[in-house]
């Protein structure tokens, strides 16, 4: 990756910083060696932490006030002139308020605008339903030309922010609100956009997750092995689109049971992306999509909501146990299909 040569990435501390803080710092660092990077926000410079970039490069930063459609249209114009705009606001506003600007101005023209949506999912649960966002993955993955990434922690956020600069078209990166404990001890685990990461090897069932659900799935897998003797494979599908078909197909043939876990409506997100790959393969597999079950989430602090919606390790353990009780149709000629 030419754009980051010579830069050292000790600009953040994954043990103490939120992913959005890490995003802001990474962007400021990245911009030192790439003067085509510009930033836009809609009165959320501090909230989305793009303020770090803004402070370092005030002449490359534009705050348009509370006007997300305008922000995304301006980003399209900046990109048309050859720049690489990073546009950040809350996930709910970039995916829906400015949805048509994303689709028509940015994606249709295949412009390299990098859209960062913070406070995604139910991470801002106590703000109420207007600020929840369990639809963005569905919306963004249905837009042609769009790359969709949902990093598992701050380290992966930093890697995604750096990697997305080299994607010629638009990219959507979805991050949460709070502090998510790191999944990875360091950056050296081979992050590549579009390539899933096997977090835990396993043979009985595969959990495919993204975002905050990855660490919880890893913890669930550990407990399930210790307490139930179930060998759970965990895959971090950080790139929802283009999805890593190979990793899904491998899980189908090798474990024949798949559970997807996401902080998103089960309609349209990671679960449906994985389901399509399975269905098109023609192979049978026990399968369940776990997430928010096509409803608006209730009010509450994120930790309480994760427990309530079974998105924490205990909830995922329940889901796996009930899925282990279901049988797939045995097929003698499996290998020939």
């Amino acid at each position: 990756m030419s754009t980051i040569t010579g830069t050292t990435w000790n600009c953040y501390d994954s043990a103490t910083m939120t992913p959005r803080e890490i995003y802001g710092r990474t962007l400021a660092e990245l911009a030192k060696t790439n003067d085509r990077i510009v930033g836009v926000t809609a009165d959320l410079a501090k909230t989305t932490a793009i303020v770090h970039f803004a402070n370092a490069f005030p002449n490359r930063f534009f705050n348009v006030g509370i006007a997300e459609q305008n922000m995304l249209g301006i980003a399209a114009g900046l990109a048309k002139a050859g720049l690489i705009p990073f546009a950040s606001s809350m996930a709910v506003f970039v995916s829906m308020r400015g949805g048509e600007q994303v689709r028509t101005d940015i994606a249709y023209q295949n412009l390299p605008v990098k859209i960062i949506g913070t406070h995604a999912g139910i991470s801002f649960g106590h703000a109420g339903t207007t600020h929840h966002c369990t639809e963005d993955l569905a919306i963004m993955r249905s837009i042609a030309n769009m790359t969709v990434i949902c990093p598992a922690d701050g380290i992966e956020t930093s890697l995604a922010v750096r990697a997305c600069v080299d994607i010629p078209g638009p990219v959507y990166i979805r991050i949460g609100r709070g502090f998510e404990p790191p999944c990875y001890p360091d950056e050296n685990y081979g992050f590549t956009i579009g390539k899933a990461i096997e977090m835990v090897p396993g043979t009985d069932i595969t959990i495919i997750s993204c975002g905050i659900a990855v660490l919880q799935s890893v913890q669930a897998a550990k407990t399930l092995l210790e307490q139930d003797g179930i060998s759970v494979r965990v895959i971090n599908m950080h790139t929802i689109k283009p999805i890593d078909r190979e990793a899904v197909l491998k899980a189908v043939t090798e474990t024949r049971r798949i559970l997807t876990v996401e902080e998103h409506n089960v309609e349209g997100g990671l679960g449906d992306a994985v389901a399509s790959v399975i269905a098109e393969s023609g192979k049978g597999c026990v399968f369940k999509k776990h997430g928010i079950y096509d409803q608006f989430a209730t009010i509450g602090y994120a930790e309480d909501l994760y427990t309530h919606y079974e998105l924490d390790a205990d909830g995922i353990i329940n889901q796996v146990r009930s899925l282990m009780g279901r049988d797939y149709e045995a097929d003698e000629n499996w290998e020939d299909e």
Partner: protein
Amino acid sequence: MACTVEEKQRLQDIARELRLTIIDVTAWSGGAHVGGSLSIVELLTALYFKYLNVDPERPQWEDRDRFVLSKGHAAAALIPVLSKRGFIPEEELKTFNHFGSPFAMHPDSNKVTGCDASTGSLGHGLSIAAGMGLAARYLKKDYKTVCLMGDGECCEGSVWEAAMSIANFKLTNVITIVDRNRLMIDGFTEDVMALEPFAEKWHSFGFDVIEIDGHDFEQVCSALEKGWNATEKPVFILANTIKGKGVDFMENNVVWHYASADSALCEKAKASILNL
């Protein structure tokens, strides 16, 4: 006179109590948009305790006046005022923001008794109010709809789409108010995205613009009275206010857009309100 001396005193007493409750809610909820809640206390008090024809016994009464808090992040002011007006038991406010509570940082009309619109995504409320106004006309009802917005909120293009509709449809039954506290999240409105000449903008959109001190009950009441009696042009009230009003160390300071709960801080804030 729009507001007698005794009435003014009564409203001021309610306003002081409301400010104290806003601080309590900040503590109970874990944090609240305290600055923009304190700036609208007089406006909400005059509306709910003098002008809005609402009935806590019949929250869905179809002839009631409607109120849309378009700057939904000021739920920490709206929900306590609904409570004081009798829609919600005060005890329930302690659940604010917590799991399963009807009350979050933004008001939810599915859950909050007496709340007419779910808001929080800025720039939506005035269109909803325009729809309520059109419905009143079609249904031959004489209820009024009042919409309160933030000034930063007026950066949203949708605000101006709604403004154009209210003037075009001559919706004199809709009263538009902007809380002009001159601050948004990232700074002063005039530094982030200049709104001025603001009154002229509304005037040119076809409104009868009334500029007032939004903390002075006489001016607030007289402006609302004009709004209630409008027949020619829809009324727009430009309420000049102070973000954080009533808590000396919060006034006009951008850092108090949102405050996390902190008991020492809340005590200090209450002491300042009581000294007002």
